[in-house]
């Protein structure tokens, strides 16, 4: 019997390491966290596209907002705006003054483009070409620098997109559209914590936004409003909107 001059040890060593290396990159390997995340993402609705608020009165037939749990001071502001409308001198909304709309951006009946990226969901508004950034990979800090649009943090709960927004300043309205035409002053304070729960229809062509307003500075308890949005045709584009080029009534 001729003894094999080549030792079997180095052969076994490289065979073993190649098998291990191949195994790490082979499809037979266990799913990684990234792959599991990808699988979960595949069950979620498709956000990308241009959507439009379906319109209608935000509070339906509740035109004097009896259902909203105002505190007396915020109720008084709202009632004054109704009176101003009736008198023909409507309240001047931020959106007509080229100022950020804050929450009101979700009520405006113009096109809105949603763009989903791994870390940020962008909500781009045609009116004012305003931008909301929803951070999907961060936990909110304890304190915020107050801002007009607040600071938004999102997460998925199954196929519901939940967005928590904190750190609003007190210079925007919840909405000014309770009783269109004219403008109403449905105000909030810098204590507002807004929670939005967005759910999509089975055909993916519409979504429902359940907005919950938790503001102990302006209301006696949290309250909820629902807005609906419809997907626009694929060739719909967000137009350039230069506020200063629009005819606006800027008399203070």
């Amino acid at each position, binding site marked *: 019997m001729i003894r094999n001059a080549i030792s079997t040890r*180095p052969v076994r060593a490289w065979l073993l390491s190649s098998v291990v290396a191949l195994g790490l*990159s082979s499809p037979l390997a266990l799913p990684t966290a990234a792959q599991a995340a990808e699988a979960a993402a595949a069950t979620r609705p498709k956000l990308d596209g241009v959507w439009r608020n379906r319109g209608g009165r935000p509070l339906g037939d509740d035109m004097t907002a009896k259902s909203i749990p105002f505190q007396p001071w915020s109720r008084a502001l709202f009632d004054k705006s109704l009176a101003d409308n009736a008198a023909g001198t409507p309240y001047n909304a*931020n959106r007509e003054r*080229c100022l950020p709309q804050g929450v009101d951006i979700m009520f405006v009946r113009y096109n809105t483009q949603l763009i989903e990226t791994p870390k940020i969901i*962008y909500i781009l508004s045609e009116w004012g*070409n305003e931008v909301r950034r929803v951070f999907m990979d961060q936990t909110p800090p304890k304190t915020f620098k107050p801002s*007009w649009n607040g600071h938004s943090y999102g997460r998925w709960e199954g196929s519901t997109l939940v967005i928590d927004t904190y750190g609003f300043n007190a210079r925007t309205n919840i909405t000014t559209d309770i009783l269109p035409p004219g403008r109403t002053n449905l105000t909030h304070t810098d204590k507002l914590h807004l929670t939005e729960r967005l759910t999509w229809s089975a055909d993916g062509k519409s979504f429902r936004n359940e907005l919950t307003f938790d503001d102990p500075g302006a209301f006696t308890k949290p309250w909820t409003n629902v807005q609906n949005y419809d997907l626009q045709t694929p060739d719909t584009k967000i137009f350039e909107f*230069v506020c200063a080029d629009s005819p606006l009534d800027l008399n203070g």
Partner: protein
Amino acid sequence: MMREFGRCSALMLLSVAALAAGAPARAADSPPDLSGVWWLDGGAKPALQGLAAARQKLSAQGRARFVETKAEKASIDAKVKDLTDVRKCVPPGVTRLWGLPFPFEIVAKPDVTVLLFEHTHSLRFAYMNQPRVDPEQAVSLNRLGSSVGRWEGDTLVIETTAFSNLGFLDEEGLPQGEKLETVERIRPIGPNKLSISIEVKDPEFYSEPWTLNVTATRRPGSTIEEYVCGYGVLETRYTK
């Protein structure tokens, strides 16, 4: 014989390890990752230097127009010192947007690439793999034109047409007209570095095309801040 075998096995090990370590590599035809917040190197300076040089390229008609637009711009600049003047919210010209000490984002998706500028929260949408917009057919002529985009390897190419004659290409009032066309080339030149060039062609006002070249650096941890410029308010990262 043993030595040769040793070399062979080492090579085998290396190539298998390389395969394993290399996966998952960026697929050959997927674009580079331009996400994050970018700042122009040198702030406004490099673009403004290029724009100053562009004045040499004004045609006779351009020079005449520049006299008008210079006066117009100076008048607006004086008036917007009054905070109630909402023209401070007007987006700067497409070239001037590459010459500002304010950051920007590039959000690139298969159908559209969006450029989001912190300054005046200006937005530009480049619809991917679409034909250039014909100004005669355009729904509207925009201050920032209408853009289409495509990838050429690692380079994002954005072609913009259908500009309005409102607005100015620089801070002094360099004119822009309805014949303006621009081509931007944006490509990574390092892990957090972009090269951005914008070629400007406007046969009405400039006797030949001219190009600005700038670079930008991605700053992890940086965020785009609000730029509030409406009636009675100017709040930016530099005013707060």
